[in-house]
């Protein structure tokens, strides 16, 4: 940040605490210390009045964007007019922001080059967060699948007296012959075992 300039005051509204902290960390690393993070919009007008932010960021899944925009247009809390994004003509930035899932409102008259880095940082952090969540979801479902297979093996071992290796081979062979995933076969087997179990014995 250029010396001698008053640092930008930034308000981030995000109900996802984890993502909010990812964005906060990014902005602090980049030298933006005048940061306020809020997780819900209760009393937001008073907060805005108090901190007079230069930039307000909110994620697109937040249903309160319409309320917020109305407040920018009407409220006495907002002393300076607030426009959207960096620059209306900067369509690439706008598109990148919408794609990343964030929208930014910027006090009128603020120079484009001062806001652009903030928005770029938010966009890259939003994208990184989405990637992270996706990977986490994938890892979670991978783990779930593995657990299903373990349980199905256990059922086969106890009901048919198979070894662990034999149980696995049976599951894999069945999956191959039916052209299905081994986790799907495991799931069917667990469901069937649950249905067939004598009352009181199901898990």
């Amino acid at each position: 940040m250029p010396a001698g300039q008053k640092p930008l005051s930034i308000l981030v509204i995000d109900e996802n605490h984890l993502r909010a902290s990812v964005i906060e960390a990014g902005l602090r690393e980049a030298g933006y210390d005048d940061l306020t993070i809020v997780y819900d919009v209760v009393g937001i007008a008073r907060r805005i009045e108090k901190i007079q932010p230069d930039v307000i960021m909110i994620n697109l899944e937040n249903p309160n964007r319409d309320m917020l925009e109305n407040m920018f247009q009407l409220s006495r809390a907002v002393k300076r007019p607030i426009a959207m994004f960096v620059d209306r003509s900067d369509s690439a930035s706008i598109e990148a922001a919408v794609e990343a899932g964030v929208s930014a409102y910027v006090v009128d008259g603020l120079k484009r080059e001062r806001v652009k880095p903030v928005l770029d940082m938010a966009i890259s952090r939003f994208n990184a967060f989405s990637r992270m969540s996706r990977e986490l979801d994938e890892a979670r479902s991978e783990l779930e699948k593995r657990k299903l297979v373990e349980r199905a093996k256990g059922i086969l071992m106890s009901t048919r007296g198979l070894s662990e290796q034999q149980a696995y081979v049976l599951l894999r062979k069945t999956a191959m012959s039916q052209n299905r995933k081994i986790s799907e076969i495991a799931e069917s087997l667990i469901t069937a075992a649950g249905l067939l179990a004598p009352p009181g014995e199901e898990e």
Partner: protein
Amino acid sequence: MAETHQITAGFMPLLDSAVLVTAKEMGFAAAEGIDLTLVREMSWANIRDRLAVGHFQVAHMLGPMPIACNLGLTPLAVPTIVPMALGQGGNAVTVSNAVWAAMSAHGAEENFDPATTGHALKKVVLERVSQRKPLLRFAVVHPFSGHNYELRYWLAACGIDPSRDIEIVIVPPPLMVDALASGTIDGYCVGEPWSTAAALLGRGHIVTVKAAIWRSSPEKVLGAGALWAEENPEALSALLRALSNAAKWCGDAHNHDDLTRILAEKLYVAQPAGWMLPALRGQLPIGGERTVAVSDFFVPFAKGATFPWKSHALWFYSQMVRWGQVQHTAANAQIARETYRPDLYRAALKPLGIALPVANAKVEGALTAATPVGSSGASLVLGPDGFFDGGLFDPDKLDAYIASQKL
């Protein structure tokens, strides 16, 4: 069909997304050669932004929104046209149980009559002023919405100044019921299923409905990017035909069970079917098993309900002026008038042989009973379309109407 048009449409999870949803789910879009993708959104701002950056070609929009976009009143707006409406009516005004109790004490009855309930509400409002209690706070979904304007019209006609005697705030539809129950707001005007939901859950009381404040009145529309529409006239025409057929299907009472089952799905409104049937049947709940019958509560197809009347656009514009959102000039009125495009509607739907109005605009509030009007294709019956206070809106006398509507 040989050619496939790829169209992505944004929608909000509300009952009146029905026409768009069934165009896809019941195969009306596919039959016109359209590969229709529907994307559910969480705010009208998202819909506007995604239309602006080209993620959507068309969207489920609040009737006044495209006009506000074209007048430059909202951030990040691109030129947007309205080639079709997505039905008429569908909103209701609901108040908290406490406000209803106070209104009842002042003579409000469970009949949705705007004049008498409004009169009772006025007494409640005055009482609070004399007791120095905080103003009642009502919510609407968006500043540029039919909800905002019909709520204000009703209040003003009942002698309540909506800018001084009460407070009006913006709350997203799915949060309305909780906001009412928690006392954050005292009432709201919203689309379905959110008034029915409050009534069925015992959290609020429906006091009047859009169809009673202004019968056969405009609500959601199909907003289309003007540039896309210009460059893809065939895709747009095909879409309008698909939507018209979908609207007809939605308007058939035999399909209402199926319709609510589809809308209840996770991808769409994702709320219980039982919350959506009352609006479709025109039997709105008022507590326990009791209901009030409303004619034309939500009309997806009949009575030219999908026709984009220029008089509807101009009435919305007159309300933007009335409540200080825009200055009245001849140029602004022209922008509003040209936003709605009955010419495109007629050109696209002519092959269907359905009833098409000959006129582009009409005097709103002039029909006191259902009336046959000039049409091409099948015969067309319009109305009744009255304002509850007997008001008339003649789009040819816009200046005089605007001048007369000061409080």
